[in-house]
């Protein structure tokens, strides 16, 4: 089925994140020297400037910190889904990540609600991590 929505721009820094997503894994970077973790990806640790960063699999669990509901389609490819949500999720490991919440009505979203990652294979090359309520379908 053709996919018309924008695809993520995959750069050398972000490629490992998207390769992991294709394997249905959520991976973040962690600094080998100081243990800091962060999102979005960056090649250098902004805490201690070490370049020895590793990609670690995270639990995929987190909680909703904030969200918005789009009532206007800035991308025509999203028009059919109006009104749609975008959320900032605070992962268990600390960093925040942006994604869509799936399987939940917009009016039922609550700050602090526990969520877990699910993976949507949108094209043969690209998988998007999204989040559903823990215990959701």
């Amino acid at each position, binding site marked *: 089925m053709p996919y018309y*929505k*924008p*695809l*993520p*721009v*995959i*750069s050398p*820094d*972000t490629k490992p994140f998207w390769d992991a997503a294709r394997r249905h894994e959520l991976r973040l970077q962690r600094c080998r020297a100081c243990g*800091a973790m*962060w*999102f*979005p*990806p*960056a090649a250098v*640790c*902004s*805490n201690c400037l070490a370049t020895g960063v590793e990609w670690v699999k995270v639990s995929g669990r987190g909680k909703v*910190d*904030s*969200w*918005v*509901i*789009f*009532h*206007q389609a*800035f*991308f025509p490819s*999203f028009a059919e*889904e109006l*009104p*749609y949500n*975008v959320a*900032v999720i605070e992962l268990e490991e*600390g*960093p*925040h990540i*942006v*994604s*869509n919440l799936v399987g939940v009505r917009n009016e039922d979203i609550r*700050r602090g609600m526990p969520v877990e990652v699910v993976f949507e294979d949108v094209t043969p090359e690209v998988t*998007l991590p*999204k989040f559903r309520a823990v215990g959701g379908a």
Partner: protein
Amino acid sequence: MPRYPVKDQTAICGVGTTEKFGAFPDKTLLQMAGEAFREALADCGLNKEDIDGIVVMGFGSDRFDFDRVAPALGIKPRFCGQTWLHGRFMGPSIQWAAMAACTGMADCVACFWATDGRSHPIVWGGASDTEGTRPGGGPHIEFPEYGMTSPGAGFAMLMKRYLLKYGYTSRDLAALSVAQRKWAQLNPLALMHKPLTVEDYLAARYVVEPLRLYDYCPTADGAICIIITTAERARHLKKPPVYISGMSGLGIGRLDHSDMLGYSRPYSDRRLAETVFGMAGVTHKDIDALYAYDSFSPMPLFSIEEYGFCPPGEVLRFIQGGRLEPGGELPFNTNGGQLSESFQIGWGHHVELVRQLRGEAGARQVKNAGLAMYIGLDSATIFRR
């Protein structure tokens, strides 16, 4: 050398705008800039031959570059600054001009802004927003693959968290747009003069919830020119100088690696506030009129809080009861802000604060206005009569 060599050493000596902000489909950016330039020169009594520096920012259907603007307006600069469209660069445009004049790199710097966003509208976000597609998120937390796009949506995300964290509602948020409209009604340059009530605000459609129509500003065509010179020179020109007394910025709103999304506002890094107040030698209590960049309503709210005009978590209480309105305790965005004047990204605020400090603001005049401050996320400037 003093710690703050630029303090009070330069002044805004002239301001000019197109006669109105509105829809001018037959005018180009350069043409509108020419109108504003003539007004600004007449305002201070300088000739174009006196202008030896420029700072240029523009946005629209045509390239508004320093090396087109200068020749088109007959200017021969020995100092040039150029920026692309981001509201955050507006305050610094004036600051760079002040630094140039203070160091002797220029004597008289003309700063230019022009826009034709009403006649040549764009979608703010979506496929045309290439900055929003940069990997790792755009400057307003854009992630197009999830439908997260447009600058307003980034601030909507921050506002939602703030509303939830401190227990506020949309009704509390309405007070800002309502206040701005009251000032706009007194401003001939403002686009929006119709009265706006809290009920009008709440009845309007959501754009990116929790932000509604009146949390966004209208676009308009127009141009503005602001001329800065040394304090000494300004004292010999037509109008009372508006001295640039304190400056800070640019910050980037990202505190540490855990906040690479730029998601931390309002934040507790006080250095920008300490620098601008420290340089001017004043506190927030001394500010007679406050201006804050307001493409979307969360921006000026965070500015008010981040610079200490109210305690953390209190801004939506602070703005109730008409505090920011004509006759209120803290005259705020007395031009109506972008929210009601139009999208001139802070240039209109600067023209207004100059007029206030000179005593030229007519029906909007703040009594005994001696100190004004502009906060631009993430810069700030304090101006003194």
